[in-house]
């Protein structure tokens, strides 16, 4: 019968004789644990969901629009239209040291015929790298536009998932033919459903994508409306933009410091903001949960104080028989920790239950899926352990410092 077994035995005795008291104490810890772990789980779920939605636009890409100059340069007045060509992009590909990939995007609305149906669709002419940068993942059995498509100016089209339903209903669109500019295009792939909370020209689920070479050949377009690019590492996007402005400024004669000549939307900034904001938000949730847990801990501490008071005589007797102050300290500390651990285990189980119910509620798009992950479980458990030890320490210290001769007469 070590102090641990002693503590367990005492605890069961308390459970029997002090049902309500022990229940309320444990309930305080259960409540605190549920609050803490659930708030952390919701914070994590929301963060994951927001990150995924952000990534719907693309994973840390830069979107650039060639526009008009805002600074005079080499004797030319400001306000000149900047037009970027395929050759200019080739130059960027050749000269840039930071670039991972770049794709032009030509876009326009066209009538598309599917059998007897005609609908107006936003169509973009893009290169194969576009798919990866913008997270356009094909559903099983399909593919995105590839290099042979580009080289041979094939008439192939990759369509958004909602568009696919509008066009073909429940049928599999891959391999089917649609008519764009009155010429037949083969559907090669359909977009996997994705969350996308930001866009620059409509959601991808409603759009269609064809090879840039095909687009220019069919429409005669020479200048891409948009450039999408990405650096070798996300933190290099900013210097990459400077580099591209330098290369294109030299070629197209505009001031490389002119922010308007080529306007950019660096989505990494969005991710940095998200990380900062959500970090603070999750910290806040964690603190709120921790406070609740601490209140539960204070409950345990109070009860332990009463228990120590009630057992003063027993403590005195045990000490007279040779129990050291450390043994007594350890026994009461263990009892507090067991109560806390019990409450914590119940609390974590309840949280997991709530989370799994929540996953079925279909609110994923708004708040994500809260999950009591291993990280949250470990974090909650260590905070619980800390609270339990703090709650038990002072009453236990009180018990251990009793004078046996006095305590026995209690």
């Amino acid at each position: 019968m070590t102090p641990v077994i002693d503590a367990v035995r005492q605890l069961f005795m308390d459970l029997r004789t002090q049902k309500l008291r022990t229940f309320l104490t444990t309930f305080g810890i259960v409540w605190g644990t549920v609050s803490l772990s659930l708030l952390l789980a919701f914070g994590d779920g929301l963060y994951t969901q927001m990150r995924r939605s952000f990534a719907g636009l693309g994973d840390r890409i830069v979107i650039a629009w060639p526009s008009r100059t805002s600074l005079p340069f080499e004797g030319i007045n400001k306000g000149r239209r900047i037009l970027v060509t395929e050759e200019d992009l080739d130059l960027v590909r050749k000269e840039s040291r930071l670039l991972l990939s770049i794709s032009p995007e030509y876009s326009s609305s066209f009538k598309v015929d599917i059998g007897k149906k005609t609908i107006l669709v936003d169509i973009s002419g893009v290169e194969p790298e576009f798919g990866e940068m913008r997270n356009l993942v094909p559903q099983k059995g399909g593919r995105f536009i590839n290099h042979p498509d580009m080289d041979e100016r094939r008439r192939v089209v990759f369509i958004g998932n909602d568009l696919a339903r509008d066009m073909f209903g429940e049928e599999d669109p891959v391999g089917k033919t649609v008519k764009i500019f009155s010429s037949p295009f083969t559907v090669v792939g359909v977009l996997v459903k994705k969350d996308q909370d930001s866009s620059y020209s409509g959601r991808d689920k409603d759009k269609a994508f064809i090879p840039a070479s095909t687009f220019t050949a069919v429409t005669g377009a020479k200048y891409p409306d948009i450039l999408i690019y990405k650096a070798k590492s996300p933190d290099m996007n900013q210097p990459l933009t400077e580099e591209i402005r330098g290369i294109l400024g030299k070629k197209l004669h505009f001031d490389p410091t002119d922010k308007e000549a080529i306007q950019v939307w660096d989505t990494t900034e969005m991710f940095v903001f998200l990380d900062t904001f959500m970090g603070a938000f999750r910290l806040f949730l964690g603190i709120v949960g921790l406070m609740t847990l601490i209140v539960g801990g204070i409950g345990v501490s109070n009860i332990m104080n009463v228990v120590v008071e009630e057992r003063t005589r027993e403590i005195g007797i045990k000490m007279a028989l040779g129990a050291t102050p450390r043994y007594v300290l350890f026994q009461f500390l263990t009892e507090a920790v067991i109560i806390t651990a019990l409450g914590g285990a119940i609390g974590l189980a309840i949280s997991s239950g709530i989370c799994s119910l929540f996953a079925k509620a279909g609110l994923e798009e708004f708040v994500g899926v809260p999950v009591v992950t291993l990280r949250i479980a470990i974090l909650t458990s260590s905070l619980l352990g800390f609270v339990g030890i703090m709650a038990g320490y002072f009453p236990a210290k009180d018990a251990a410092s009793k004078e046996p001769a006095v305590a026995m007469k209690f």
Partner: protein
Amino acid sequence: MNIPFFRKKNNGGDGNGIAISMDNITKVYDTGKIKVDALKGIDLSVKNGEFVAIVGPSGSGKSTLMNIIGCLDKSTDGKYELSGELVSGFDKERLADIRNRKIGFVFQNFNLLPQITALDNIEMPMIFGRVPSSERKQKARELLAKMGLSDKEAAKPTELSGGQTQRVAIARALAMDPKVLLADEPTGNLDSTSGSDILSVFSELNDQGSTIIVVTHDMALARRANRIIEIRDGRIVSDQKTN
């Protein structure tokens, strides 16, 4: 790992036949406003195998002396050796260990733990003394048998009579084979029949070689001892052998 509340059993020196040796022991209770001199210089020597009764009116300091002999309290000044170990300088942890190994307590109000069985109560000091479980059980059963209570193994203290309870308490006091059996008014809560019954147990234990110190104002009990020490006002006023 060194677990501090479990120490290896070590009975220390035997003090050359001297169980207790006190040299000018004083105890001052200082409440801040008033100082009370409970003990004013006690010199006391008890040999192994002696049966000593400490008597005196209430407030004489005999309880204080008993607490210091039993290592439940520390003296303010003076030297105290318990079977060869100088315990007057020990801290609380070491005093707990000394109580466990060298002192067996018997109290007026028994002080058994009410929620556990007689056998578990007897095992209690051996738990603190880190005696292996099987050995504990065997020893506890032997002691119960010695007290004539083999059939009360599983009884809770509340199910025993006063005399039986005190016998269990004596069995518990003997569990660690202490150097000194220290009893504080052991018959105070008993009727006269049970009381003389307990007295016989003490006499018997003394005949078998146990060193016994009894604090009492029951003269019937004191006369059983072979030495009576009388305390008044914190001093030993008489120290006589009986026949």
